[in-house]
Structures are given as C-alpha cells and as structure tokens.
C-alpha cells in the first residue's frame, strides 16, 4: 500500500503568538516496497512528519491516504455518538497496527517485567481476541525476527539485557503486531559501528521478508546513500526534494543549503567532475569505487 500525502501543514502552538510552522504544504508519495529515507537536520520537521503517518499528530490541514485509511482534519464534534467514537477508535487502532513506529532510543520505552511480556504488549492491545497460544507464537516470531534467541531471552527483565539487545527487543515490540509499513526514527542513534552494521542487516532482512515498506529518518548521509532506494529532504518544514540518492546527492548545493553534508562518495564525485573525471554512480561506496577504478584504468 502506498502512502500519499497531500498538502500537509502543521503549526506548533497554533493560534498563539508563538505559532511556528513545523510543516508547510508537504506533498509526498511513498510507494510500496521502498526503503525510504527522510533526511534533514534537527528541527527540519522530519519527526513531525513521520508522526503524522500513524496519526500520533492529528492533521491540521491536508490529507494523507494510506491504503484504505484516509486521514484529514476533523473538527472535534461535541456530540459524537458512542458508536461513532468506537468506530473511529478501531479505525485508528487499525492504522497504528498497519504503520509501526519505532521512536528514537526505543529502548527507553520498555516497561514490562519480562521481555516476552513487553513484546506482546502491542499484540494484546491491537488484537485483544488473540488466544494465549497465538500471542506466544507471534511474540516468539517477533523476537526471532530481530535475531534474538527466544528461549534464552523471553523471561529476562528488559532492564537487565545489554544495550544492543534492548534496542532489538524494542523493535520486536513493534514488529509483533505485524505492521506492513515500518517507520524508524534514527534507528542507529548511539550504536557503535558493529551494532550499526548489524542493525542495517536486520532492517534489510525485514524489508526482504516481512515488511513491505521501510521508512527511516536519518542524518547520516553515507547511510542513506548506501541503503535507501529513495529519499526526501526537509528543511524548515518544507519538503525540498524527493528522489533516489543519486538524484538528491548530485545537487550538492541543495544539501549544503539544508545544513547537511553530502556523503563522501558524492563529495568526491562532485569535486572530481570539476577536474575532468565524470562518474555515473549511484553513490554507494561499492559502485563509486568500481566506477572510479574503471575511469582511471581506461585512461591509461
């Protein structure tokens, strides 16, 4: 299912003197199957944007369509029938189940006595009818999906395990509800290089096997160049450009203007083109090196 956003505006402190635009007229389509990157420096509106995708932030103006779900501004009606309310609520739950959201430092939201209980939290909330046996299966699947050994970890306290494990458990806690779209805000923040590499592998595996669309927020352009199929760059609440990393990072001026640095490969490509070496690369490290090596060898 595609995500189609149309003219999204959002203001903090709307209607007061301190009103500030967090998003201005954002229109963006994210196709099913993408590994989509959302980039921009802190305060560019990227976090506000992703929280719109599962209605954690109510829409002020504009419209978002995700599969069958339509989100738009709805003035709070005084007299809403109980039935109506209930219907709205179950629709909202459906949406949140479909679009899983992993916040920054998700390990700080762990709360239960055991890993198993924490991971099953979403299952019990979204699908209260599920039998205990079924819950266990779903929980086990989720924990194994993130590369942990279910029987080893299920009865441990989520506060006792290592930092890297905590993050995986937190992600499993979102995966447990079987979302079709997974949104992650800075999933690698604070991880060391090894942990980071492992997490990227995990995300690619999820993308291949279980999650149709992955959306990540990142400010590491090298990561975006190497992992994303497509991305959108935000600056001061405005969507500046959407495209493949190749399209985005060729425009070095735009990236710098938005307060970011292009990936090293793009930096080199841009500088080299000024010196007569023109490379047609997608800016992944591997592709760049192969193309450059060929260019140098062919010169001989």
């Amino acid at each position, binding site marked *: 299912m595609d995500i189609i956003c149309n003219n999204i505006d959002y203001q*903090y*402190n709307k209607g*007061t*003197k*301190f009103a500030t635009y967090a998003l201005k007229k954002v229109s963006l389509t994210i196709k099913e199957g993408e590994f989509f990157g959302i980039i921009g420096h802190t305060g560019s509106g990227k976090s506000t944007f992703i*929280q719109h995708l*599962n209605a*954690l932030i109510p829409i002020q103006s504009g419209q978002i369509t995700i599969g069958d779900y339509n989100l738009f501004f709805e003035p709070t009606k005084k007299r809403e029938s109980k039935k109506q309310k209930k219907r709205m*609520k179950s629709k909202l*739950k459906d949406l*949140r*189940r479909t679009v*899983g*959201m992993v*916040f920054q430092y*998700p390990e*700080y*939201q*762990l*709360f*239960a006595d055991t890993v198993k209980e924490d991971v099953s*939290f*979403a299952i019990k*909330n*979204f699908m209260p009818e599920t039998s205990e046996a079924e819950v266990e299966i779903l929980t086990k699947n989720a924990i194994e999906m993130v590369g942990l050994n279910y029987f080893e970890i299920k009865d441990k306290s989520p*506060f006792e395990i290592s930092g890297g494990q905590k993050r995986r458990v937190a992600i499993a*806690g*979102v995966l447990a*509800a079987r979302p079709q779209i997974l949104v992650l805000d800075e999933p690698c923040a604070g991880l060391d290089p090894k942990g980071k590499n492992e997490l990227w592998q995990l995300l690619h595996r999820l993308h291949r096997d279980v999650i149709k669309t992955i959306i990540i927020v990142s400010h590491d352009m090298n990561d975006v160049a190497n992992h994303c199929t497509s991305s959108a760059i935000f600056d001061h609440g405005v969507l500046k450009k959407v495209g493949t990393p190749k399209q985005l990072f060729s425009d070095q001026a735009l990236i710098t203007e938005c307060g970011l640095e292009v990936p090293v490969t793009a930096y080199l490509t841009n500088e080299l083109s000024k010196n007569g070496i023109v490379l047609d690369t997608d800016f992944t490290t591997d592709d760049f090196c192969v193309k450059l090596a060929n260019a140098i060898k062919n010169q001989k």
Partner: protein
Amino acid sequence: MLKDAVFGQYYPVKSPVHRMDSFTKIVLLIIYIVMVFVAKNFWGFLAVGVFLLVTILASKVPFKSVARSIKAVYFIIAFTFIINIFFHKEEGAKVLWDVWLLRNITDKSLIYAVFMALRFTLLMFGSSLLTLTSSPVELTNGIEVLLKPLTIFKIPVHILALMMSIALRFIPTLMEETERIINAQKARGADFESGNIFKRAKALLPVLIPLLTSALRRAEELGDAMDARCFSSTTKRTKFKKLTFSWRDLIGLLFTLATLSAVILCNNFLVAII
C-alpha cells in the same frame, strides 16, 4: 505541547520588572496579597487593578500570558462564584431571581460573588507575574534569602534551594520525555482513554515505569556531573549572583506601598465621602 502547559512559566524578555531583585519581588508579592485581602470594596480593587496594569505594562509580558495563569484554576474561581451566589446571606438584600434553579439570588450575593471571583483572579494574576518575570534560579535565590533565618536551626537552606532549582530545571525535560513515551506506547496500541478508573490507572503503567526508570538514570548521571564539577555539600560556595537592592526595587517598593495606602484609603474614607 505539554511542556508549555506548566503554570506561569518564565517569560524571558528584558524589562525593569525582570531586572528587579527576586527577593524584593517576593516581598512585594506578599504585600500585594495582603492588599488584595485588605480591600473591602471595588474601589480598592480598582487601585489594585491599576497597580497590576502598570506592572504588567512595565514587565513587557503580554496580557495573554498573564491571563493564561487562571486557566489552571478557573474551575476553583467558578466554584467559589457559584457557592457565593447561592449561599451568601446578608441583611436587607433584595431578591433578584427566585425561579427554578436560580433560587434566592439577591443583589448582595451577586455582588459578593463577583467580588470574591475578582479577588481570586487578582491573586492569580499577581502571583503569575512573579513567576513570569523571575527565572526559576532567581526565584530559588530569592526564596533562599527569605529562608536564610532558618539556618539558625541548622537547616541547610542552600541545599534546599539547589534542589528546588534542579527540580525546576528538569520540568521541561521530563515533560518532553513523558510526551515521547506516551506517543511510543500509543504507537503500540496503548489506549489511555477507555475503561473505568482502574483500567485507566493500569494503562498508565507503561508510561510511568519508563519515566521513573529514566528519571533515576538522569538523577544518577546528574549526580556524577555535579561531583565532577567539584560539588560538595560541606565546602564553602561562592554565590555569583548577589541580590542587590537597586533603584528599581525602591521604585517598586514605593509604588506597592502607595497602592496599599490607596486601598486602605478606599476602605475607610472614600466610601464615606461618596
């Protein structure tokens, strides 16, 4: 956002009122509270109102921010208003309405109810002006001076003051954190709005536990950071910001005393003249 909802948060602009000594401001607030209670009639309130108006203008804080302070207590104001309008009894009162719900409402009870509501509102406006124009640190400094006499009883006033200032400092941080955790659990399908009171209280656990864990972690790190910055409860500390009584404070004091006299004047003579 949640963190903006904190009552009377500091409004950081530069104004003569902001630059006044916080200890003086606290003392003036006490005088202000006294005069609001001393005032017996609306003329007295008029004097207080003029005082408030001038102070707000001098403080450069928008009226809206000051007015916001009653948002938190409008219920109490409304409650006292209703109680008074129905139950205030006075000799020689003329009954205005006595139909259906509006039973026994007299002119005197109406006036009295308005008077009490106004008194409460003035109190709130005045107190919020103190917190709007003094940073939490200035406030704690002021309170520290105010409590200084307690050191005689071996009460560690400066540590209490530091604890208060740290607590204030962490309010916005923890508010933000609460919001983030609530959102994260909502994204996992948590529902904080359905069910009876017990169900709702239970639904809060997934927010409270992470919040508590995080607060403890923060406290531990802060403790380390303070130790690393040479904090010790026993050695003598310098106080960088010394409270000083300046001409601004003098003007403030004179102005407040003048208003107090006006209020007393209104109470005793004005009414007689009119």
